[in-house]
């Protein structure tokens, strides 16, 4: 059996001081990391392989430029067997904003790898499209389930017993036919930290770079129908009273405010 896990390198902005230009947040204020949701997807894949006595190969795929290899090494260190990195000069931010482009590229990778199961995150924490997994399933023409917080794979029955986390503490119990794409919700498992041994092994694992030609994807398949017209820091609608000063002073103000609200214990 083969599991394909999609792993995105996401950007986070520095805490307080950052500046936005026309195209978005200035590069110097960005830090990069593995998407939180993908940590859980990776763990689902790797722990499933372990339960099956490693009769399962886990392959990761990332669409991104060379700098994403740092993140890909982290994924490999957590036990993924090998990685694919898709990139091409024809790709840019506008193309990756159009989910059809991402789905076309990932579908081409799936075509090459023929996975039984594809695991993605529910959403990327930076752009938050929340769309790639389901768009990929529809492109591959296979089954799917979005926002899974429990997954039990029955390879013999070619079925996944999943739970979808709905609003307000309700779950949908769903059976999905394999092959399938599942979008994984946080909290489904306990993502491991990479061990020192894992980090060493990751150095020797393969990261296969693939371009459009390798994937037989035509540049005309790369849609870019969404464009960012402007980026801004939202105007604050805040009417909050902010207490200022050293911690002992702000704590005094807070305590007084809480007493005024009548909520202190005494």
């Amino acid at each position, binding site marked *: 059996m083969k599991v394909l896990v999609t792993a995105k390198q996401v950007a986070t902005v520095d*805490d307080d001081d950052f500046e936005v230009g026309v195209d978005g947040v200035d590069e110097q204020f960005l830090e990069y990391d593995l998407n939180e949701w993908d940590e859980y997807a990776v763990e689902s894949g790797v722990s499933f392989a372990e339960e099956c006595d490693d009769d399962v190969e886990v392959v990761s795929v990332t669409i991104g430029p060379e700098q994403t290899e740092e993140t890909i090494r982290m994924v490999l260190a957590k036990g993924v067997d090998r990685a694919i990195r898709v990139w091409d000069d024809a790709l840019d931010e506008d193309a990756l904003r159009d989910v059809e482009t991402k789905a076309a590229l990932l579908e081409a990778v799936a075509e090459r790898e023929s996975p039984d199961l594809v695991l993605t995150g529910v959403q990327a924490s930076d752009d938050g499209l929340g*769309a790639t997994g*389901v768009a990929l399933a529809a492109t591959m023409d296979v089954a799917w389930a979005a926002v899974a917080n429990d997954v039990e794979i029955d390879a013999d029955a070619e079925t996944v017993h999943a739970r979808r986390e709905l609003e307000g503490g309700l779950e949908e119990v769903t059976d999905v036919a394999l092959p399938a794409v599942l979008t994984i919700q946080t909290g489904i498992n306990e993502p491991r930290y990479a061990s020192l041994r894992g980090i060493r092994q990751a150095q020797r694992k393969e990261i296969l770079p693939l371009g459009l030609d390798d994937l037989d994807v035509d540049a005309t398949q790369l849609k870019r129908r969404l464009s960012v017209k402007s980026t801004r820091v939202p105007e604050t609608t805040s009417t909050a009273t902010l207490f200022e000063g050293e911690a002992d002073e702000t704590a005094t103000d807070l305590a007084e405010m809480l007493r005024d609200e009548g909520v202190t214990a005494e």
Partner: protein
Amino acid sequence: MSDVLVVAEHRQDSLRDVSFELVTAGRNLADEMDGTLDVAVISGAVESFAEALSLDGVDRIHTVDYGDEFNHDVYTQAVTQLHDAVDPTVLLLPNSVNGLDYAPAVATRLGLPYVSDTVDVEWDGEGVVTVREQFGGKVETVVGVDDDAAVVSVRPGAYAPADTDGTASVVAFDAEIETDAVLTDVRGFEEVAGGDVDITEADVLVSVGRGIEDEENLDLIFDLAEALDATVSASRPVVDDGWLDKGRQVGQSGKVVTPDVYLAIGISGAVQHVAGMKGAETIVAVNTDPNAPIFDIADYGVVDDLFDVVPELIEQLG
């Protein structure tokens, strides 16, 4: 031909709030286009749903009487066929958990551009222009669509619900659902177990987020709660990490709480969290990041390190 088509959402015999919010969004958009608004409702008690959706500004309602609860394969087929029949310029879908489960598939099947999780949708005379958030709400982007038609999903809570009655015509739409292409079997619902405390009953909640960093540091939060005779609740990451049980999670997938006072300690104020606590009487935030969205809804705030402020506060209350 229509201008805007909205797909309603329901669960366990009730229309969900987002359906009425989508009607508002759809009507605004249709007005800007000088056009018509169609609404579709699929599965369940479609007739009574149609009655409830007959709101001011809705021109036509299409009912698809097939099955009871949401199944994404059924929805994807029905919406795609409706889209072919109605031919809207903009298809508006909810960015709810079920929206996440079918909206991208509909866009893919229709070959249309998809803009997800928008907080504002407008027509600028030539095309669709939306507003989306990035980096957990710290940045807003205005995203335009360069195409003749689009699929747009709207964030729950972004628009006020429509509530004035109207006189829409109701038409039954005969969708042909190919059962071979229904690859998921929805077996039912289950309620997540409650846990040891009922945070919805508390008058005062001390709520802790990822800013707490470590499980051991939770003692600090429990000490503060004790000093305030309050109950401890949390944002999702603290529950995901297994430090507190699921019954204490506030938010979209946890509990909706309306205490007199809600102290958000080291919580950024992500939309899914705010969905569960915006109804609190008084909101107090302690966060090192002055740009954290939690300050937009807070009544009182301190921009500082919780590890400095909270111990001081406990001492002063003690």
